[in-house]
């Protein structure tokens, strides 16, 4: 075995990113690493590449226990990573980038430009690329940059290459080129770890697959004989979640009415949310679901169309206007947009509604503490005191703070954008229960989720988006296939149904 990982653990602050990461790769093998967003794929690979240090677990490199403290150390052992977002120096040439950090082939630290260009040319032609070594990297497409990273890895004499979702920003023909290269590398006896969450890609490339879910390896084995459904089941762990089922309510008065809403590629959206309803918003990545939430929350104001909240025309032009009208957004990227991690739980909860606990700009601290403790209890946020720093809590508890601050603000329309991303199974359950409680208390909820089983469990009906438009509405109970049929571009849909 080239590389073998056993029981790798890693947490950031209070968030457990990996609890039990296992994986092994042989020479000449393409090993797929799959899992949903937040499953811990990138974290595991960054540990291999020396970018993070593991908290616990064993890492063997050619049978020897190792620990890479720095990327340079991993590189010296022969591990290289091709990143999702390029880590090249944009203002240097291709050749300089290929040999960056190792150009000391003259004794006194001079860069021997001509020698480097020649060597780069040799590596490039060996791999069959069409790149001019003296071109500046800033002028390359994302695909071109990945090729340079691959050249760099090969020039360094790497024996293990890690691709972190290389095709997510590439066109179809570029994707084919990447596959060709991966096969070529593997023919030369290199080991390849290929991270992806695109099911379409697997068979054209991989030998074996490892699936991560919620930070732990749930399956390792050959791709042969593994059905698509089994794989999905490993990734989403449907059986664990299937226990939750929500009783729906008779819907009440309309709370959010959207008509003819357009902004950018989000086009002509119309729908109504009623009090007591949870409406799912399904679709593939890039279908425009998050973009729609941004318009409704005033982050990107609408170009045309009408947004009415509780019968009053709002058309928010800023989050502040949306918040004032009673709309709340639980954003997809909790750490960057949802919480001030350095502040306490209490201060996060009262942030949107300081006016309520202050007079002429001066805070009433006792009232503030009372509000914070009240909502901390209601949302069952686990902490020793509301003065605890938000950044120290687990993902699930952090999500509950985000919800608590909107409940405390008295919001009535909730936009949940991927509410269960990066939180553990038990916390997911609690988030669903909280959504149900909100609906029962008369709120209207729009829930975006890429995990179809989740939508089916929680939502009363599901709106499906494709390429910026709503392509249909399904009343629950419905099926994943029905949603996929509306969500996927035609040719993929055919493949999915087979």
């Amino acid at each position, binding site marked *: 075995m080239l590389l073998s990982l056993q029981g790798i653990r890693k947490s*950031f*602050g209070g968030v457990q990113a990996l609890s039990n990461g296992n994986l092994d790769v042989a020479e000449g093998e393409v090993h797929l690493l799959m899992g949903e967003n937040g499953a811990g794929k990138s974290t595991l690979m960054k540990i291999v590449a020396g970018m993070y240090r593991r908290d616990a677990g064993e890492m063997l490199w050619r049978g020897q226990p190792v620990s890479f403290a720095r990327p340079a150390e991993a590189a010296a052992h022969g591990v290289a990573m091709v990143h999702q977002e390029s880590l090249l120096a944009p203002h240097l040439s291709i050749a300089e980038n290929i040999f960056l950090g190792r150009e000391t082939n003259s004794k006194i630290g001079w860069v021997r430009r001509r020698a480097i260009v020649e060597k780069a040319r040799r590596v490039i032609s060996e791999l069959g690329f069409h790149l001019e070594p003296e071109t500046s990297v800033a002028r390359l497409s994302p695909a071109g940059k990945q090729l340079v990273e691959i050249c760099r890895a090969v020039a360094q004499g790497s024996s293990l290459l890690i691709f972190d979702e290389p095709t997510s920003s590439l066109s179809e023909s570029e994707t084919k080129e990447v596959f060709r290269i991966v096969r070529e590398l593997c023919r030369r006896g290199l080991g390849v770890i290929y991270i992806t969450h695109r099911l379409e890609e697997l068979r054209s490339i991989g030998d074996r697959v490892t699936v991560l879910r919620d930070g732990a390896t749930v399956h390792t084995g050959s791709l042969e004989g593994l059905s698509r459904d089994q794989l999905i089941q490993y990734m989403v762990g449907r059986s664990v979640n299937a226990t939750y089922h929500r009783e729906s309510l008779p819907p009440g008065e309309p709370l959010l009415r959207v008509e003819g809403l357009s902004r950018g590629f989000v086009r002509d959206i119309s729908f109504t949310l009623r009090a007591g309803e949870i409406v799912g918003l399904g679709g593939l990545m890039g279908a425009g679901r998050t973009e729609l939430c941004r318009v409704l929350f005033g*982050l990107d104001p609408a170009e045309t169309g009408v947004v009415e909240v509780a019968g009053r025309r709002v058309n928010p032009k800023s*989050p*502040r206007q949306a918040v004032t009208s009673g709309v709340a957004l639980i954003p997809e990227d909790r750490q960057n*947009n949802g919480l001030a*991690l350095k*502040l306490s739980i209490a201060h996060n909860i009262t942030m*949107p509604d300081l*006016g309520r606990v202050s007079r002429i700009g001066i805070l009433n601290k006792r009232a503030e503490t009372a509000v914070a403790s009240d909502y901390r209890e209601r949302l069952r946020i686990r902490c020793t005191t509301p003065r605890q720093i938000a950044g120290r809590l687990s993902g699930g508890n952090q999500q509950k703070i985000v919800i608590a601050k909107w409940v405390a603000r008295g919001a009535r329309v909730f936009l949940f954008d991927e509410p269960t991303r990066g939180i553990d199974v038990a916390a997911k359950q609690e988030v669903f229960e909280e959504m149900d409680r909100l609906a029962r208390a008369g709120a209207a909820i729009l829930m975006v989720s890429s995990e179809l089983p989740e939508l089916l469990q929680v939502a009363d009906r599901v709106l499906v988006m494709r390429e910026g438009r709503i392509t249909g509405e399904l009343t629950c109970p419905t099926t994943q296939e029905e949603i996929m049929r509306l969500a996927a571009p035609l040719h993929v849909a055919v493949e999915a149904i087979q």
Partner: protein
Amino acid sequence: MQKSLVQRLQRLLPFVTLALLFIALTIATPHFLTAVNLASVARQTAVINIMALGMTLVIISGGIDLSVGSTLAVAGLFGTMAIKAGQPIPLAIAIGIGTGLFCGFLNGLMITQLRISPFIVTLGTLEAYRGLALVVSKGLPVHEIPDAFSFLGDGNLLGIPFSLWVLAACAVAMHFLLENTKLGRYSFAIGSNQSAAYYAGVPIKFHLTAVYAIAGMLAGLAGMVEASRLMTGQPTAGQSYELQAIAAVVIGGGSLQGGEGSVVGTLIGAFIIGLLSNGSDLLGINPYWQQVTIGAIIIAAVGFDEFRKRRFATA
């Protein structure tokens, strides 16, 4: 539990440093612990300290204000010119403070409306305000100010330097602002995570503008204290004071990444710098070495801060 104990010790480090410095100087020289000397330390540090209070607010909000030294000069100049033109002293002081407020307000407007980073805006106004002071004064200081004006910077009230009373009042007000007002809370929120604050509906532009206006106002007040201490309106006053103010905040535990800082920490930071320079004078240490020492302390303080952050990485 163990972590919180370590953290508590880390919080106390600036205070422990100050206390040790105080004790060491008391032992090292008999001239240190005298009313005259301590009053002189207080007067020397009051100006930087008042500016540093405003800087604390700015740094907590995740910004920086490099222009406060130049603002001090413009404000001091306008204030003393008003006195010379025959205006009553309280009005002249108000004019100086108002000038500072306006300079800070302009900074805030440019930062929030043009969306230029605070570092660049205030680097620009560091030059521009200084240039303005030189243009208006034609490069010449304002002299022959009535003696009564010296009370602000040199007078005593109840046996304590008046500038120390001013500083104390500003410190209490700033502490109250940070801990008990919406503006203070929003400054922490914006500095901790501007995007999250925006998503929560916090009016960011309004509050950031207010933050820079307040910092400018305090720089204006510091300018009047400085003018009173020197009994001139100097267009070249306050050069590199901004760096000392930043140093005081940082030594006192403020983070240039925003969201952290306190009035008490800043006061301690400013007094550490003040005691170091006073102690060096008393002990006859070459003043050039003072600069080296203060530089080393800034780096040590920030290095320590970074070390602390890495251990608490949230990646």
